[in-house]
């Protein structure tokens, strides 16, 4: 779809990213308000859980146990430029400060005696529960150290590997999710969920109600279907109405609120706002020439980086996994018969979809084609085995299909290792050598 463009109110490559969507601002405002409410509940003596991103938070949502997601909080800390301080605290306590930055930020923060005054939004309230999945050898260790510092109960969930890998997972995930996995693997994941529920019931004294989970699952489907419509709309609209600077924050913040009325409504408002942009002919970058795909975690400490290439080259980051995962990975229809099994089919897949070749590579290619991508900028994290995902296979799959890839390593949260000028130069070189004039320059 050709978008006859009117400019949205964003230009150039500012020191801090400029965002054009109300939905982004709304999400930012909501999460602050929500966090304040969460703190009040914790202060009033409620149990409070701290979860890794791949933990099936739907269970806690259904049980009305307040929780914060580790990766969301790490992103907040990075955006508030706190990580340098936190990692120096790690070092002072005898830990290495060059490991697992994404997962260890909250543990590092827990070493800060001044957290209540200097931490983001008054610091993280002390959790009474810490839950992670064993998707990496370091996870249980970091979460145990974190839990110990807060006096929280640690709960670990196991992770299993796929024996069979049917092609095109995104075609099966919503309606034929049972076919995605070995049946015994789904059985085991359901048992894992039941064990988690038992732990939470004992710890909090709250009853898990399956009917409540049904409501949560329905709301999530509603929310993620809006993301699907949004992703599809951006994919076919040229120039793009928005960039990843708008969508990453709008989606990621709401994704951690999934299963709530607010998140479903927010996803709808996000779609409607972007649809209105398209209908009005508004676009993010009027001189859009190249559409870029961002592979890897969000660059939380330097969002403005994404906008550095718009004015000079017309190169626009239009795709990130945050919106697209919402579109393709979360929806589970036909869940009413067995909501726990449908939930299992969601949470065990996240690791597979993102980090297991060939599933990740095939999906990225499908998305690149669907989103009319001209080039891919792929940030592999420096110190994270969990995010090791077969970068060779991903790059090869995309390049073999004629889509150039720039692969580089950097840290999504630790700004100490980031040099914007160097990184900008690298991407500029990629654009000039691989994209401009069809890569013939």
């Amino acid at each position: 779809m050709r978008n006859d463009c009117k400019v949205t109110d964003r230009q150039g490559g500012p020191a801090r990213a400029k965002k054009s969507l109300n939905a982004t601002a709304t999400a930012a405002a909501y999460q602050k308000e929500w966090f304040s409410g969460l703190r009040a509940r914790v202060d009033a003596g409620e149990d409070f859980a701290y979860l890794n991103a791949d933990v099936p938070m739907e269970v806690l949502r259904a049980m009305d146990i307040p929780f914060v997601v580790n990766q969301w909080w790490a992103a907040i800390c990075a955006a508030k430029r706190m990580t340098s301080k936190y990692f120096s605290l790690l070092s002072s306590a005898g830990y290495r400060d060059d490991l697992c930055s994404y997962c260890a930020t909250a543990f590092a923060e827990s070493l800060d005696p001044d957290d209540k005054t200097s931490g983001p939004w008054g610091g993280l309230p002390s959790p009474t529960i810490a839950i992670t999945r064993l998707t990496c050898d370091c996870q249980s260790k970091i979460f145990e150290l974190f839990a110990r510092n807060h006096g929280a109960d640690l709960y670990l969930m196991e992770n299993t590997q796929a024996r069979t890998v049917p092609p095109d997972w995104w075609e099966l995930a919503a309606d034929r999710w049972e076919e995605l996995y070995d049946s015994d693997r789904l059985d085991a994941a359901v048992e894992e969920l039941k064990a988690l529920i038992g732990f939470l019931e004992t710890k909090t004294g709250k009853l898990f109600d399956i009917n409540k989970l049904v409501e949560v699952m329905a709301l999530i489907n509603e929310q993620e279907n809006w993301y699907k419509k949004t992703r599809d709309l951006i994919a076919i609209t040229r120039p793009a109405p928005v960039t990843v600077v708008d969508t990453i924050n709008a989606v990621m913040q709401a994704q951690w609120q999934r299963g709530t009325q607010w998140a479903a409504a927010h996803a709808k408002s996000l779609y409607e706002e972007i649809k209105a942009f398209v209908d009005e002919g508004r676009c993010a970058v009027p001189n859009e020439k190249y559409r870029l795909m961002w592979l890897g975690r969000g660059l939380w400490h330097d969002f403005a980086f994404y906008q550095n290439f718009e004015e000079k080259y017309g190169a626009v980051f239009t795709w990130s996994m945050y919106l697209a995962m919402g579109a393709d990975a979360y929806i589970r229809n036909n869940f009413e018969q067995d909501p726990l099994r449908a939930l299992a089919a969601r949470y065990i897949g996240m690791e597979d979809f993102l980090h297991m070749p060939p599933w990740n590579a095939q999906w990225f290619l499908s998305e690149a084609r669907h989103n009319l991508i001209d080039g891919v900028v792929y940030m592999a994290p420096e110190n994270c085995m969990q995010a090791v995902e077969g970068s060779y296979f991903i790059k090869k799959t995309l390049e073999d299909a004629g889509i150039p890839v720039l692969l580089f390593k950097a840290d999504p949260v630790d700004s100490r290792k980031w040099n914007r000028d160097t990184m900008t130069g690298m991407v500029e070189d990629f654009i000039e050598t691989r994209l401009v004039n069809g890569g013939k320059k």
Partner: protein
Amino acid sequence: MSIRECAMNSEAFRRLYEVYKNRETVSDAFRKNGGKVVGQMGCDVPDELVIAAGMMPVRLYADEYRPLVQADKYLEYSFDPVMRAQFEKVVDGTYNDRIDYLAISNSTDVIIRLYLYLREIKRLDPAAPIPPLEFIDWLFTRKMIHQSRNELTVRLFWRKLEEWSGRTITDNDVQSAAAICNEDRAALRRISALRKADEVKVSGSEALVIIGSAFFMDRREHANLVNLVADDAQSWPGIDAARIFMTGSAQESTELYELIEKVGGVVIGEDHDWGDRFFGRDCNTSYSPVRAIVDAYMMREFSSKKATVSQRVKALNDAVDSARAEGVLFYINAYEEAASWDFPSQKSSLESRGIATGSFVKMLFPLSENRDLEEKLGSFVESVRRVRRDA
């Protein structure tokens, strides 16, 4: 100190030494005679089942000086160097000529990735010289649901071995193989006792040879030879050196231990999989075969990769106490990160009990790449001696 003359004078030790140094000799002959060899990547492939299938298990290991052409092509930088070097030998076809099948256990997160990558390479290029693969998806969290899941996992591997070997594996086959493996473990415990005695009779590097040769030869023969070495070692001279316990990266060769011995220490125990951890727990033959294998591998001492910090603190304290070590060496290869999260708590716990610690992290592979290592190890051993003197 290295391997002492008294050890080399033992005929049984010499045989183990020969196998340890020439690791393919026995398995090559086994294949030449029509046998099938199962390579093992990861330390949790159940030997008992492979032996019960009439096949020979061999442990994959790194070549220190082989250029890492394939590893550099396929692997991200964050794979540790030993696993990179093992991967190289699989992908470049070296192992294709020496093993018939490759069983991979999820002993670390890195190995899971290697399995996924190997599977993908084979999918993209069916002609790639990679042997048929089987992944053993152990869960190490100690809950009944995971124990049950592990039983399924063992049954799947059992079936795969039947397919590979072309024969039915009976319960009796597994029980007989378990008995052989238990005999071997018992023999190795005799050696361990000699390492940890008041008068240390077997050095760390000698012990690595005795233990590591098990991975490359017939297990019953190994048990017999180890028992003979244990008999011989009763009369070996005692070693007067600082008693060091080593934790961290697995040592596939004796180089590090020899360096420690050179500067006045002796490694009397370790918790890695080319050392004491290999024979820590028997396969309980009074259980059903599947349950016995699950029990042996799931319930043995926590590895540094698959355990929480508190589990590792307790495991190390127990091992150090049992060995009566005076110092603990933390030696962790670059990118082998998990144990780094344990270290501060372990160090604190050990030092509060008067045990000296030395930390060597982000170590390069091969060992010779580390500058001034001998000097630094010397300083550490001297600090251990100082604690002894002060005491």
